[in-house]
């Protein structure tokens, strides 16, 4: 597991529910949309996470030092959880390598948000990570 991401996940695991809500909202507030230099609307549907009710799009690129960099767009302005997870992933995966991304356990969704997520919500949030992993596998394949 990637150290920086693991530290964030553990941070969430050790807080009470109210603190968790506040931190998640804070992460959601810091969400940055994909810049136009990476993608412009209308976004390609193959970047859209299936079954995510918030309409999340994911882009993965390799930066100048050969590490992956991720960008996101959340269609639903009310998709607070999705925005929070995207921000956590962006921060937690900074300077990580391609292979490490594939090893991320999607269980982090439950460790961050709790185990009482609805089925639709957990499928959607897990789908964001799975989409990133598929894109990274493709980047490795093509490199």
């Amino acid at each position, binding site marked *: 597991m990637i150290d920086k991401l693991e530290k964030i996940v553990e941070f969430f695991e050790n807080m009470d529910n109210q603190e968790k809500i506040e931190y998640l909202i804070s992460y959601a507030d810091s969400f940055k949309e994909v810049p136009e230099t990476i993608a412009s609307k209308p976004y390609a549907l193959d970047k859209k996470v299936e079954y995510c009710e*918030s309409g999340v799009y994911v882009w993965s690129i390799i930066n100048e030092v050969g590490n992956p960099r991720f960008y996101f767009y959340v269609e639903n302005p*009310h998709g607070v959880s999705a925005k929070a997870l995207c921000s956590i992933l962006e921060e937690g995966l900074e300077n990580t390598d391609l292979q490490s991304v594939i090893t991320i356990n999607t269980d982090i969704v439950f460790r961050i948000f709790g185990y*009482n997520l609805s089925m639709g*919500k957990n499928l959607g949030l897990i789908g964001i990570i799975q989409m990133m992993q598929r894109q990274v596998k493709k980047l490795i394949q093509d490199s």
Partner: protein
Amino acid sequence: MKSKNEKEYFNKEVLVTTDWLLQNLDKKEIRIVESNEDPLLYSTGHIPGAVQIDWTNDLNNQLVRDYIGKEDFEKLMSKNGISNDTTVVFYGDKSNWWACYAFWVFKLFGHTNAKIINGGRLKWEKEGKPLTREVIVYQESDYKSETRNDNDIRAFRDDVVFHIKNGMSLIDVRSPEEYTGKRLHMPEYPNEGALRGGHIPGALNVPWAKAVNDLDGTFKSADELEKLYLVENHLNSDDDLIVYCRIGERSSHTWFLLKYLLGFKNVKNYDGSWTEWGNSVGLPIQK
């Protein structure tokens, strides 16, 4: 403003406007309830005075796939300061899916005094109406609930089996891709908790989204809804009708509009929906 010739909803009292709510925010006999797909959303800011009722943690039984019982409903009402005569006004995200779902569950317990804010959270926000992060803790009430009545507005699997055997109407309110089963066949993607894709034999496909205005999440006019359900889909307000989706939330939205806005007399929501039907041994599907 409605034009002189524009038809009214069948029960116009049950749907309130954002302006009405703004004028009635301080009324003690009203309790505003926010119910969302994303439970975090309430904490980012909500209508002043609103409480949150979360469908997963508050309305569902945590050990049985069912809703809470009478005692837990009474506790939930008491905790939120809701009395038997309180007017409960629901709103939420996703064009009020979850608000309609909570409204429907309240009806199972006989709480008749309930309303939906037309347009829900989206319209309230777009109009720049006030939101707050302040959570008010209300004085506990003494709520006496009826025993949950699952007979009148709720359908179970066996009801649906009986329904299709007798050629009665069903509406699948999911997207056309879900209705045809296409979405379960995409490689590498998670499915929606069902082993098979498709729909219940004989069900019409009338996606819930056709009933709302995209820009503000409000219900379409009575004329437009009549055209959609009565004319284009040949339904009749006397029909014995069951609606379903994936888990019963989108179909609560359609159930609400058919019952209250169009006056369907006998419409039930099948909350087991596709996650039950699509997984059940021995039940037929169509694609």
